[in-house]
């Protein structure tokens, strides 16, 4: 067991969004969370990453034996949590590669390892960029600056590949991607999975799950997981929509 979420309640601006969520994810497992707009999917992602605007009002989250909620956002990242943002922010003047190197070294330092050798780092980064079919010119540009929507998403997975997290939360990483880009992103995620990284996929559509086969699928509605199943649940949702499941849950 890598992460265990128990009875989680989260409020934003005093409005409760997550209302008693339970979820356990084992090492190397891929879980998909699906649900209608406003069900709390992104709130869950931001909360696990430690965004200060999301108030945890009740519940616990255990991550690799630590109390996750005690850690600040950067401490969580250094402990191995990675959030692939739905809307990656642009930071002008700060090059992508500079930020990555600083982030990687912050992790290494936290793990008691020496800073990475510059030559070694470049070799490593170029390899990962090639994997993500990311042109090397993106390495030296400002973080996400002037990137297209698809480029930003690929950049997120590229960063994930470099930082090698234990647990990756991918928030609507598939939105705005064409089929070729989707395959590249999925390929990147699958490689991480082989390296025992656990993944929480947040998505609207079943499409992504054709390329990243989840071990479990959960339906989130009104701040709670109302149904869990295997990958067939996603197909069922795709065929019937959410209404049926929501109605069944209410009944």
């Amino acid at each position, binding site marked *: 067991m890598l992460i265990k979420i128990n009875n989680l309640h989260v409020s934003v601006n005093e409005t409760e969004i997550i209302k008693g969520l339970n979820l356990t994810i084992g090492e190397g497992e891929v879980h998909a969370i699906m649900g209608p707009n406003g069900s709390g999917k992104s709130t869950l992602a931001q909360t696990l*990453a*430690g*965004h*200060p*605007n999301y108030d945890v009002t009740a519940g616990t989250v255990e991550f690799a034996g630590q109390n996750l909620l005690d850690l*600040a*956002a*950067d401490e*969580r*990242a*250094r402990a191995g949590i*990675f*959030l692939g*943002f739905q809307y*990656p*922010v642009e*930071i*002008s*003047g*700060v090059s992508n590669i*500079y*930020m*990555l190197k*600083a*982030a*990687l070294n*912050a*992790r290494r330092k*936290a793990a008691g390892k020496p800073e990475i050798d510059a030559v070694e780092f470049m070799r490593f980064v170029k390899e990962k960029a090639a994997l993500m079919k990311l042109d090397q010119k993106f390495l030296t540009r*400002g*973080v996400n600056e002037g990137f297209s929507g698809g480029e930003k998403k690929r950049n997120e997975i590229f*960063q994930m590949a470099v*930082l090698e997290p234990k647990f990756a939360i991918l928030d609507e990483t598939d939105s705005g991607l064409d089929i070729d880009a989707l395959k590249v992103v999925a390929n990147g995620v699958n490689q991480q999975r082989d390296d025992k990284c656990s993944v929480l996929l947040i998505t609207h559509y079943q499409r992504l799950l054709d390329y990243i086969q989840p071990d479990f699928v959960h339906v989130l509605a009104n701040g709670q997981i109302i149904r869990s199943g295997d990958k067939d649940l996603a197909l069922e949702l795709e065929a019937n929509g959410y209404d049926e499941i929501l109605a069944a849950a209410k009944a």
Partner: protein
Amino acid sequence: MSSKQTDVKDLIERKYEHGFITDIETDTVPPGLDEDVIRLISRKKGEPQFMLDWRLKSFKHWQTMSKPNWAKLNIAPINYQDISYFSAPKRPEDGPQSLDEVDPKLLETYEKLGIPLHERARLAGVAVDAVFDSVSVTTTFKGKLAEAGVIFCPFSEAVINHPELIERYLGTVVPYRDNFFAALNSAVFSDGSFVYIPKGVRCPMELSTYFRINAANTGQFERTLIIADEGSHVSYLEGCTAPMRDENQLHAAVVELVAEQDAEIKYSTVQNWYPGDEEGRGGIYNFVTKRGDCRGDRSKVSWTQVEAGSAITWKYPSCILRGNGSIGEFYSVAVTNNLQQADTGTKMVHIGKNTKSTIISKGISAGRAQNTYRGLVKIFPTADNARNYTQCDSLLMGNQCGAHTFPYMEIKNPNAVVEHEATTSKIADDQLFYCQQRGLSEEDAVNMIVNGFCKEVFRELPMEFAVEAQALMNVSLEGAVG
């Protein structure tokens, strides 16, 4: 974010690193200013008559002037009779003949400042003219420069050895009537640097001056004159520090640059005068007049400044683009924290045809500081096809500081293109969160974003200065996250 408050307190209490006082004997004139003091300064320096006459003329004119009050600065009244106008480290002989003769304590001071004066200088390839209080202490690399025909020496030495150059150029870029502080400087300036690059010579190394105010109750009034003759090229660096003192000290310098045809002068400053404490006690009043005259066709003057210190900064390094096709540049980072005030910017005066200017200004305001960009772009009717591009960005850190932009554009030629852009913003929370999510601490994230904000300016600095400037920025802004 939640963890901020405690960090802020810890960091704000950090002390000024260069605030040591060097205990050496100095030869200081008692406070006060009248014609006799000026005669005394001139006599101590053994100046020719023309210098004394010029000083006295300047003094007479200064007495008719009043201090400028248009800047967005709150300046406590200055009593000019309380200031000592001359302070030199005392020595039995007239001055040191070589580094070995320099007071070891002085060398230690430079050591602490990290000035590459000794063998380090040789390795770094920097020739240093160090001005301590008001007097030039030593200049390294004289021999190598002399081979190239470059004159780089204390101003007072140039007055004795090259009076014809001084008489020809002094006050031709910044006349003594120019403004209140320039007039005062013209009357009482004690030393500074003089540079002459002969025709067609590319100065073989970066020239550098470090200024330090050490004695109490003294003002520092250095004067720098750089002449780049036809087709020559020089890069000049200036750094400065001062010890911590409770009272304000006045620094009123004048820098004149002359670029003849096809000549290029690059002038870089990292200003780190004592900024005062967190309650605004003490700190240097940095009232400086810097101007470059692009006299010749296709000449170029480029100013780069990183202004991190001083209680109050009043400074507008400017370019007079007289020669056809001449180029003026101004790259500036101004950081203010605690109760610091800065009113700084530039003037680009386009007179010649096809003249170009670029202004990049980055202001960062934190604590209770006020940071103002003030600039003038003036296009004369004669300046056909003149071009200016100005970009002024301000970053606010905390809700008690201010950032202001006052760009004046006066355009009298229909073929000119003048573009100005300015933005004011803070570091966005989502940018911080993004960096933190990747594992960076909040402070590292802020430093990274701030350095990114200043990147366009830092990359104009010579390498070793760029590193110093980045470190200085991080130190100046420590605890400013809010």
